[in-house]
């Protein structure tokens, strides 16, 4: 076996060229015959090698606890089509979306808890996440901690039930192009249309009406140098944007209730 391997190497290009001239000709003939079976285990080996070589660094193993809840955190900027510079903390939508697919598909996951602390970001990416969350068949509870601003608002209302921490805040402000003077009415209409997508999604998924939300969005005198409103904890509940003021305990309790409900619903169906 080892002998054969050495001769194999000698027959390969770097050596075969420097060897006697008549030798490569007969050596080339058996090569195509042996090549295909040799290649198949080769790719298998390669896969195994890569799997083996992935090593986790600098982390101790946390005892594995089987959880029936999938926790999704949306922090910093919601990153969409443009990769943001490294000073931003971002939530990449191309990762969130397959995670939601996996949570929906995985039979061990019975409920999803979405924790938000975001400053906003890409409209398309934010709406994509919000739509994915709202279309999950499993119970979803959202919890706004710290902040759920701008495009965080539709994500916060996308679940079956929403919570906001007492001190958490949500900034509702118009969509605009910073520093750009709107020259043609079409630009304004375009932005208005984009804004409509966000506003109608929020109105459909929470108790706030479209008119009320627009009023909050265009209110003056609340934010410095800007129009809009900053709603804090109880205010968000008062406007009907969020269902309840509460923290982690309440959110998990509600999620477990919804899971129980979903389970008993399944039993009735069966």
């Amino acid at each position, binding site marked *: 076996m080892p002998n054969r391997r050495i001769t194999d190497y000698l027959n390969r290009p770097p050596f075969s060229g420097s060897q006697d001239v008549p030798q490569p000709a007969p050596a080339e003939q058996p090569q195509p015959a042996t090549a295909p079976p040799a290649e198949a285990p080769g790719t298998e080996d390669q*896969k195994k*090698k*890569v*799997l083996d*070589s*992935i*090593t*986790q*660094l*600098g982390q101790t193993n946390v005892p594995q606890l089987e959880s029936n809840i*999938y926790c999704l955190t949306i922090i910093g*900027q919601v990153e*969409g*089509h*443009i*990769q*943001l*510079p*490294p*000073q*931003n903390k971002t939530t*990449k939508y*191309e*990762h969130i979306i*397959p*995670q939601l*697919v*996996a*949570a929906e*598909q*995985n039979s061990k996951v019975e409920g999803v808890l979405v924790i938000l602390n975001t*400053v*906003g*970001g*890409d*409209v*398309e990416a*934010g709406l994509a996440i919000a739509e994915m969350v709202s279309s999950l068949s499993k119970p979803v509870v959202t919890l706004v901690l710290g*902040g759920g*601003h*701008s*495009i965080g608002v539709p994500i916060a209302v996308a679940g079956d039930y929403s919570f906001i921490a007492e001190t958490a805040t949500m*900034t509702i*402000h118009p*969509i605009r192009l*910073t*520093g750009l003077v709107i020259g043609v009415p079409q630009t304004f209409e375009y*932005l208005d249309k*984009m804004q409509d997508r*966000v506003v109608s999604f929020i109105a459909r998924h929470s108790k706030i009406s479209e008119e009320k939300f627009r009023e909050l969005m265009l209110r003056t005198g609340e934010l410095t140098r800007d129009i809009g409103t900053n709603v804090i904890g109880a205010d968000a509940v008062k406007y009907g944007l969020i269902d309840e003021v509460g923290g982690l305990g309440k959110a998990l309790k509600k999620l477990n209730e919804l899971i129980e409900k979903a389970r008993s619903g399944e039993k009735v169906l069966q």
Partner: protein
Amino acid sequence: MIFYSVVPMEVVFANMEQVEKRELRELPLGEATMVVEPTGPYEGRIVRLISPNPQDYLNPRLAPGETVRFRPDWHA
């Protein structure tokens, strides 16, 4: 892209040139591909995961920011 955030655009998009300078490598892992930013010899940080299997995205070892070590690629 429409940017909708409370953080000013000039703050978010500062240092944009650093993103463009980054050299990324794609490493195959079974049916998945990891986009890795090299941090040292045969070592890198996962930037993005591309996989047709959604369960891969639930694997904390493959999450962005995780460090991976790989063996030199003999075939290249």
